[in-house]
């Protein structure tokens, strides 16, 4: 690519042809404000808050949508620019339901920041806020308040470009334009997967997750309730961002201490049930392979696809209802955890399950919906009582008045608090695959996977779809049927890539044995419930932290987790056994595609 030279704020720089003025300015640390722009999404250029002056042009140019050109002389800060930006923000505020004190995004809102920066005063424009806007709270996961919407369409682009769901659209036009679902139906009636990516990409409080933390506080305050908290792998590498730490800092020990100080009765780890998922899912895969390869059973569905990501599960239920047989029947780690909390854990601790409140801290919005699926009550109770996002949890820590930065580290409680490094990497795209391979290869050959330090780098990375092939050699006698087989696996993250993988499966052209799909870009570390902002750079740092956490663990393979060995011995019996079947596996339902 050829280079071009231009001047920004009197500074000469050289950039690749095609780079926008906004990105060129970023390279020399000049920050231009934006609203409709997001690094993850295509250029939209609708808000005009990023305007700059280009010498010789009368009109201000939107820097996010204008490519830098040879010889351009650009000003990013002049009276004309500041006035224009102030006008843009003032006009947005004039149709905005400015209720910052009661707004969930208060102190983390791009509109609020800009209004403060440009000192927008109330009486510049008369308020033209539309009356009687109702908040849509129909979904377990997502809340939509059009009175806070600035119509930047980041949500529409997110749902279309990253997720290929297109549950949202811009309807009507002019001042009547708004963000709508199909026919403006309530969120719980449309094809939304609850992934929460639109929430994570919304600059304001218009799209938020449904919050349940007040109920959790209530349970904590109730002396008759035994509150069990479990935290997903990816929470510990992102939570710190909300509490004063650099992006990519691991805060596992402080997080555990915080929960204890908040008053939870037991602090346990979803990573434990991630390890358990590996045992169940690994065995399910080997069983399917045996049926297909040895018994010649043609009804067996291959590739088998992971089912830990509830956004992905709802996606396939809507979009590929004819192919649900490919999904592993394993519940997600969250739901396995819930079912065991109110059976195994209760039994071991001598508690009445009706007094237990199980709270899952998740990077995810879809986990809220999953917890409320009617079938998720195999323990005889609601398996998970509340699913909170990383964001809600961060807020609770602030509410608790804890000086998080200076908390001492501490360890998870037992039982169901121990985990392996394999459980930890569930949080990053490729992690479930790597964890499954570490265990499956060991089970079948009696040896470790042939990768240095157990790090299966072939399935790591951020490429949307990755694949690998592992040759199985020198099997233990009982697995002889796998001798010489090339195990073909693939990893996809972000529902856009899930659709590409599924189109292949639907066309009968998929030659994989096992596929990992995560609904969100980057996997759970980029989940819809993670701290805002999230972008490619931040996702990469969180992924790095996940692999550091893995390396820091003395045990790196799920089947070597002593608590896993123990639960099979004392409670579950064997993988895919009757108890497992009842508590740890589930079924799926067909849903409307449109």
């Amino acid at each position: 690519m050829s280079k071009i030279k231009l001047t920004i704020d009197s500074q000469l720089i050289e950039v690749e042809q095609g780079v926008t003025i906004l990105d060129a300015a970023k390279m020399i640390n000049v920050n231009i404000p934006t609203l409709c722009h997001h690094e993850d999404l295509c250029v939209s250029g609708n808000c005009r808050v990023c305007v700059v002056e280009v010498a010789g042009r009368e009109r201000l140019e939107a820097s996010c949508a204008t490519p830098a050109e040879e010889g351009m002389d650009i000003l990013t800060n002049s009276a004309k620019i500041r006035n224009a930006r102030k006008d843009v923000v003032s006009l947005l505020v004039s149709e905005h339901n400015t209720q910052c004190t009661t707004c969930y995004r208060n102190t983390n809102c791009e509109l609020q920041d800009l209004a403060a920066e440009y000192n927008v005063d109330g009486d510049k424009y008369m308020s033209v806020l539309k009356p009687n806007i109702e908040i849509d709270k129909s979904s377990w996961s997502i809340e939509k308040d059009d009175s806070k919407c600035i119509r930047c369409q980041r949500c529409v682009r997110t749902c279309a470009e990253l997720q290929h769901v297109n549950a949202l659209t811009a309807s009507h036009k002019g001042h009547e334009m708004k963000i709508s679902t199909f026919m403006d139906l309530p969120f719980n009636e449309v094809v939304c997967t609850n992934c929460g990516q639109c929430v994570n990409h919304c600059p304001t409080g218009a799209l938020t997750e449904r919050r349940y933390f007040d109920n959790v506080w209530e349970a904590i305050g109730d002396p008759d309730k035994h509150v069990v908290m479990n935290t997903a792998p990816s929470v510990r590498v992102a939570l710190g961002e909300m509490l004063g730490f650099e992006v990519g800092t691991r805060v596992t020990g402080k997080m555990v201490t915080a929960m204890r100080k908040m008053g939870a009765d037991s602090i346990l780890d979803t990573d434990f049930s991630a390890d358990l998922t590996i045992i169940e899912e690994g065995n399910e895969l080997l069983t399917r392979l045996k049926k297909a390869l040895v018994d010649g059973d043609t009804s067996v569905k291959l590739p088998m696809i992971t089912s830990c990501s509830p956004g992905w599960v709802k996606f396939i239920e809507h979009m590929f209802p004819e192919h649900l047989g490919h999904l592993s029947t394993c519940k997600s780690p969250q739901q396995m955890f819930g079912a065991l909390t109110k059976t195994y854990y209760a039994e071991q601790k001598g508690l009445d399950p009706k007094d237990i409140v199980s709270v899952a801290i998740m990077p995810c919005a879809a986990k809220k919906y999953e917890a409320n699926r009617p079938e998720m009550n195999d323990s005889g109770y609601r398996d998970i009582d509340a699913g909170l996002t990383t964001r809600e949890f961060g807020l609770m820590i602030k509410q608790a008045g804890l000086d998080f930065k200076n908390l001492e580290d501490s360890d998870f409680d037992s039982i169901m608090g121990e985990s392996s490094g394999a459980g930890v990497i569930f949080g990053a795209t490729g992690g479930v695959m790597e964890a499954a391979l570490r265990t499956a290869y060991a089970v079948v050959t009696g040896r470790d996977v042939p990768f240095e330090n157990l790090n299966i780098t072939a399935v790591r990375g951020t490429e949307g779809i990755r694949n690998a092939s592992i040759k199985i050699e020198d099997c233990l006698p009982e697995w002889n049927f796998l001798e010489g087989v090339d195990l073909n696996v693939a990893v996809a993250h972000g529902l856009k890539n899930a659709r590409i993988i599924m189109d292949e499966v639907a066309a009968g052209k998929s030659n994989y044995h096992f596929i990992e799909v995560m609904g969100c870009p980057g996997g759970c570390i980029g989940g819809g419930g993670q701290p805002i902002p999230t972008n490619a750079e931040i996702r990469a740092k969180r992924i790095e932290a996940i692999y550091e956490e893995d390396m820091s663990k003395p045990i790196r393979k799920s089947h070597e987790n002593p608590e896993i060995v123990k639960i099979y011995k004392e409670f579950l019996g064997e993988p895919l056994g009757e108890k497992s079947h009842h508590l740890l596996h589930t079924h799926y339902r067909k849903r409307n595609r449109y």
Partner: protein
Amino acid sequence: MLEVANIIEAKIEQYGRERQALIPILQGIIADKNFIAKDDMVLIAKELDISAADVYGTASFFSFIEDERKGKYVIRVCKSITCDMKNRRGILASLEKELRIKLGETTHDNLFTLHDVNCIGLCDQGPAMLINDEPYTHLTVEKIPIILREKRNQKN
């Protein structure tokens, strides 16, 4: 009347099974049915393999594409500035009074629906309105009952 499915099929044959066929399909259905039902939007989405929200977003953009059953005569009163200066409000009030409905509603006999619309390009002859495809210009409050009577008499 044609089946909606047949209209969609014909348009797809002509324009391809691509998103570009969406507007021709919408126009085709409107020409025949004068509104597009929810189920028909789903059908279009299925045929073009796009989301139903996409179909709705596009359909709702256009004032002439309705998603509810409308009266036989859809009246659209221009709401742009020139017509407004020439007493569009008086015209609207008179229509509301004569038809005994409010803007956006349909009469009980399903004969008339009353809407407003962005500029219809008749600024020089305002205030102006359309009844279905037919323009009515230089309107006065007095002309309204006469026009409506004409339409009522055309009923059969």
